[in-house]
């Protein structure tokens, strides 16, 4: 569970209950930096998963994107969480290419745009995560079961929302989301891909874990790590 302090609540403007720790600029930046580090550690694994059913560049593309994101964060020090996520998104769109650049870039941009200027409550952050998924689905057109990142994101968002509705703080909700994302990630293995390059393989895509769902599981796991 969450153990909040007045510092984290954002200069006294945030919510007062310990469960309602807010997502502020430092926490958002810590999340993105943790995600960048996770992409670095798992780069080879992501690329190997992508070699099996795609074109073998998921790890290197995300690595290139998050390296650029770190440079932007170092230089800019965005004022609020929305700006951190928005800049992350626009940088990914500018630097990655492929499908993962626009998809993750649009997700982070939509999250950033959905956040209030003041530190976000867990409920407000749930709304931002929902906006991120909506952006992914609008741009990519994927539905659950298509063997894409949507298969990790959708259950993660549902778990996050359930936890918040049940009174959980950021840490509890993020932890539930991370577990749900990892379950969703593993559940992509028996699926036949219907979107992206893996879909060209037809039944030959069955038996391989989706690389996009794998990187999305990292996204929620690092969120749990930095809020926990």
């Amino acid at each position: 569970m969450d153990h909040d302090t007045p510092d984290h609540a954002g200069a006294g403007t945030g919510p007062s209950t310990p469960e309602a720790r807010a997502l502020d600029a430092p926490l958002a930046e810590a999340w993105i930096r943790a995600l960048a580090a996770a992409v670095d550690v798992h780069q080879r694994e992501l690329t190997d998963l992508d070699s099996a059913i795609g074109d073998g560049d998921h790890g290197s593309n995300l690595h290139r994107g998050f390296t650029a994101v770190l440079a932007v964060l170092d230089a800019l020090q965005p004022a609020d969480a929305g700006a951190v996520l928005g800049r992350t998104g626009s940088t990914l769109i500018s630097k990655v290419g492929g499908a993962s650049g626009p998809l993750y870039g649009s997700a982070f941009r939509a999250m950033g745009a959905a956040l209030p200027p003041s530190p976000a409550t867990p409920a407000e952050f749930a709304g931002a995560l929902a906006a991120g998924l909506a952006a992914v689905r609008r741009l990519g057109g994927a539905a659950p079961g298509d063997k894409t990142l949507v298969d990790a994101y959708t259950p993660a968002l549902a778990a996050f929302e359930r936890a918040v509705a049940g009174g959980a703080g950021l840490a509890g909700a993020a932890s539930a989301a991370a577990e749900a994302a990892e379950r969703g990630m593993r559940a992509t293995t028996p699926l036949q891909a219907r979107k992206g390059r893996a879909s060209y393989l037809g039944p030959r895509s069955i038996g391989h874990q989706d690389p996009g769902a794998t990187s999305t599981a990292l996204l929620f796991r690092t969120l749990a790590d930095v809020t926990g």
Partner: protein
Amino acid sequence: MKKLINSPESVLADALAGVAAAHPELAVDVPNRVITRAVRPAAPKVALVSGGGSGHEPLHGGFVGPGMLDAACPGEVFTSPVPDQVLTAARAVDSGAGVLLVVKNYTGDVMNFRLAAELAAEEGIEVRTVLVDDDVAVRDSTWTAGRRGTGATVLVEKIAGALAERGAPLAEVAAVGERVNAASRSFAVALTAATVPAAGKPGFDLPEDEIEVGVGIHGEPGRRREKLRPARELAAEVVDTVLADHDLAAGDEVIALVNGLGGTPLLELYIVFGEVAARLAEHGVTIARSLVGNFVTSLDMAGFSLTLTKADAGLLELWDAPVATPALHRS
């Protein structure tokens, strides 16, 4: 991996520097990764912008020049360009007559070009997009991302480029591009897999005596594996596969493209073309125009693709129009 590179990270920048050094008729913006014509068209005209992952050369940069593209946006190897590149290109070449984006149907390309088109439209640039999806190896259904864009891209860029050069409005240029795409079907066979420099090893393992049938141009495996057979049998099977998905009848005319995937000698491509011509003759289909060579490659992959475009007098006249690009030249 044996490759003529300096480092896997600098492949694209180093290659663009080479393009700039070799082709003074092109303007190469290496930092922004945009290739345009060095000399602008004299009169305002619809500008054609294309792009895609690198590794398919001469596509697309080799087709920039009078009679074809106005700009090309090369992405990382097998990775679509980013929206900024496409937007930079559109700004550079728009003369007020609008920009036609020629996009191969891959998830990443479609998304990045779509984001770029939205940004360009916000700046007041009139943009239309032609999506190329000619590869019959992929079933076009809700179960896939749709058919891939392959060899037909060359024909779309050539024919739409010719019409644009004559001053036709954007809607007409887009319409002829869509018409060429709709009239085209392609299919590819690989003898070896491509090696992406950053990966350092072939995209898939293929035994010495086996081929990958229905392969794409990004190192992804194909529809199925078969034993290698004589060129005559392979060519006949590829012709029959393309025709099975085409609305061609005996007496029809086609533009036939036998395209090398990067690692196959021209000698073998001509052997294949001869067998393709013989098989088409058996079907009663006439080859009105032909193109043999490496145009839409997949790095060092050995193999070929066949593209058949149903031709009519109008398309042939545009196909025959002058073109002056590094990879396609006709006066």
